[in-house]
């Protein structure tokens, strides 16, 4: 019916979200979902409202909130600090902490989704505008996004699953002086201790290498590194 025409109009941004919603008789949130890049899921009404409520903050307040948010993203383990900073902000600006926390939870969906989809600064800004955030706030947020993006993406990659990750390697080498069979010996040996992360605990693996084995090991590891360097 009107689908094809609508699709082309959406593509050329001739219609606003509200027009799309009324034309096809769908809710505004569903219309938004059609255009968002950071997520394919339907955002609940509460989330859409939270984004629109961002417009109620003035420039300075929005800048502080953005800073608190990115501080948390850069150090995800500091959840307590994040909540503490939010309570402080709520107190200073005369609002209750509960709704503010919910607002931030909704806001967090955007950077998480954008990180997953590797969105650019422009794409993040588009999504914010689609959600009804004002131009200058969308501008500021997307600029902060592009500023912190390299660090955030490294963090995300670092969180990727690793199996039996090598955590530490200790070594010593020495000379065998004598044994119960031979009074005088002069054999060089190398002992390696590898610390491996298995789940939540670490495991130590001990092994001994003769010198030829050590040189072979070194050679193979250099080949592995050369291979990895090809790809980065």
């Amino acid at each position, binding site marked *: 019916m009107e689908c094809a025409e609508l699709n082309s109009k959406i593509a050329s941004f001739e219609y606003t979200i509200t027009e799309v919603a009324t034309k096809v008789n769908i809710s505004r949130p569903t219309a938004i979902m059609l255009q968002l890049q950071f997520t394919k899921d339907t955002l609940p009404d509460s989330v859409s409202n939270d984004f629109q409520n961002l417009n109620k903050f003035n420039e300075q307040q929005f800048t502080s909130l953005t800073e608190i948010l990115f501080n948390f993203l850069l150090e995800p383990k500091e959840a307590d600090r994040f909540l503490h900073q939010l309570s402080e902000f709520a107190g200073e600006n005369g609002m209750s902490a509960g709704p503010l926390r919910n607002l931030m939870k909704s806001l967090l969906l955007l950077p998480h989704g954008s990180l997953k989809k590797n969105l650019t600064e422009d794409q993040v800004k588009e999504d914010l505008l689609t959600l009804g955030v004002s131009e200058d706030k969308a501008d500021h947020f997307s600029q902060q996004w592009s500023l912190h993006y390299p660090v955030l993406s490294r963090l995300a*990659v670092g969180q990727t699953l690793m199996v039996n990750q*090598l955590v530490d390697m200790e070594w010593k080498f020495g000379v065998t002086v004598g044994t119960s069979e031979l*009074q005088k010996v002069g054999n060089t*040996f190398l002992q390696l201790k590898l610390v491996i992360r298995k789940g939540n605990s670490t495991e130590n693996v001990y*092994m001994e290498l003769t010198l030829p084995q050590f040189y072979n090991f070194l050679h*193979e590891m250099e080949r*592995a*590194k050369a*291979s990895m360097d090809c790809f980065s």
Partner: protein
Amino acid sequence: MAPMNTRHCKAPSKDAVRQLCADSFPSGAPESWRLAESTAGTLSVSAIEAKELIAALHTLSHHILFHNLTAPEQILVLFPKSFHPSLKILITKIMLEHSPTWRNEALSNQISLPHLVEMDWRVDMKTASDSVSRMAVPTCLVHMKVEDSSCLRGSGALSSVTVELSKETLDTMLDGLGRIRDQLSVVAGK
């Protein structure tokens, strides 16, 4: 040494003596009744006498190995004065012949941490994960087989370890290995 004198004289051939020296070297030899019996048969002596002979040869070969006696004179003085001369020389010759092999055997059997037996590696490219849907991150997997030498030789329990290394970890590891290599060349140069 005295038991050796009389019994050895009855040995049918030089090869028999040679074989006996080789058979009496392993650590289980003095206790082996089977060896004692077969020796008794070869030399036409009683089993008990054969056992004493084996024990004597075992002690002699291990003594030579421990003190690393390489010159015939050093070994000849171990025998008592009344020992049959050509037998003395024959046994000395056989012991010296076998010494390098026995020495290597002893070295490879000594106690140590598990030995690295085999090692191989592979470089993978991670293309997606639950936190990032598109990425291109290389990662290295190293697989090592270690043999626990505290178990019987040859039937050592082979355990296997697979380790994953990121690029940074591999660089750091190579750093460490490079330092080992430098230290080794310093020691070798001295």
